[in-house]
């Protein structure tokens, strides 16, 4: 007689092996950097291996916030009186812990960390995107974005050749994708190496804007000259997320 417990037992043994082999779990900041694509490949592989040995930590990084609010009777419902009690308890815990000034860059990086892996602008939000760019790339001076290059969805190209994209100012690709007939209000973008299927970048969830256009500023170093890549747009959120459009292009470098 067999059942699915055997799979679980074998799985547990492999996990125990992996923990013995990889050692301590990775630190939060290491995992954050991994998920933001900020680690060199060798380091990323090392952190990923340690993370895989601790699925309970992985779960913390990828779990979504539940929708809606709790109602009386729910396990997470907090009545007003309990809110007041907890506020009083919180005040006791903050006594003697005066707020301090830290590096603004540090906490903003942390807050944006899971969300902003690259510079991203939507429609007219280039000014905001530029501030992300400074955070990410430590640029200390203003710079003017190069001319953006509009990509056509694969299904609308009618079999014509894929777009060939040059880095506009030698350092950045400025790619623009327009949504066609999209009805969702939430989106996500990824950039994928079309040759290997590897995801190079994943955007945070994005809200729909009036222009229905996303503009992505991509550092030249991210894309290999001559390589074929895809910008993929997903519509919806969480389990309802589905692929909306694919924009294939070839990067030519400078």
């Amino acid at each position, binding site marked *: *007689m*067999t*059942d*699915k*417990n*055997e*799979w*679980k*037992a*074998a*799985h547990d043994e*492999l996990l*125990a092996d992996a*923990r013995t082999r990889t050692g*301590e779990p990775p630190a939060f900041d290491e*995992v954050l950097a991994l*998920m933001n*694509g900020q680690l060199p490949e060798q380091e990323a592989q090392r952190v990923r291996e340690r993370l*895989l040995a*601790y*699925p*309970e*930590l*992985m*779960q*913390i*990084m*990828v*779990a979504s*916030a*539940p929708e809606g*609010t*709790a109602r009386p009777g729910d*396990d*997470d419902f*907090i009545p007003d009186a309990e*809110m007041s009690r*907890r*506020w009083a*308890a*919180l005040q006791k*815990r*903050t006594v003697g*812990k*005066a*707020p*301090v*000034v830290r590096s*603004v860059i540090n*906490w903003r990086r*942390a*807050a944006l960390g*899971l969300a902003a892996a690259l510079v991203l602008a939507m429609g007219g939000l280039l000014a905001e995107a530029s501030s992300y760019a400074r955070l990410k790339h430590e640029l200390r001076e203003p710079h003017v974005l190069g001319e953006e290059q509009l990509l056509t969805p694969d299904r609308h190209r009618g079999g014509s050749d894929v777009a060939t994209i040059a880095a506009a100012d030698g350092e950045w690709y400025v790619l623009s994708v327009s949504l066609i007939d999209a009805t969702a209000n939430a989106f996500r973008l990824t950039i*994928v190496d079309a040759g290997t*299927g590897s*995801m*190079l970048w*994943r955007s945070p969830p994005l809200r729909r804007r009036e222009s229905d256009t996303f503009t992505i500023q991509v550092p030249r170093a991210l894309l290999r000259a001559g390589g074929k890549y895809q910008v*993929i747009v997903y519509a919806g959120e969480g389990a309802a*997320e589905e692929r909306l459009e694919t924009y294939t292009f070839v990067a030519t470098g400078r």
Partner: protein
Amino acid sequence: MGDNEDDELAAKFRAIYERHYRAVVRFLINGLRVPAAEAEDIAQETFVRFWESIRDYRGEAEWAFLEIVARRVYFNKRRADLTEKRRVETNATSLDDIRHWQEPAAKHDDLADRELAQMIVRRLREAMRALPDKQRECLLMRLEGFKYEQIAAILAVTVDAVKSRLRDAKKKLHADLSDLERLPWPEVFPEDEP
């Protein structure tokens, strides 16, 4: 720090508490699966951290900031627990400790059943171990309950790549375990569509 500034910060903190405390607790219990008994402490620690950095806070991305602080607080707590557990296990030398880890899946009553279960676990473990790393990673995460999208995010690949690896893993496991009759297959593999 002047009194006015103190008052302003305190008022700002109270407003943020009122706006988001319930959502943080909901996120902890029903998002991160924090046991209800622990959730209050983690939520309080999240807001203590927020208070400590409130001077840096400029009013944007309120929820995003709290969410990441909550993840960080709980991650660090679980990490500390795991590290401690690991230390204890590493130091465990009694035979009972070792037996505990070698115990096969429970609920098999007689010796024949237990031996069969042990054999199957051994075969499964070896078959999974023989999978290419990328396929094994995806399979272990699926057995752990992760969705395709979550696996894709962690491995920095597409959902299609995850499914493809799982299909390949299933083919190889089928080939390696074909002699095991009536082996139940967990529902972790994608449909066998092309």
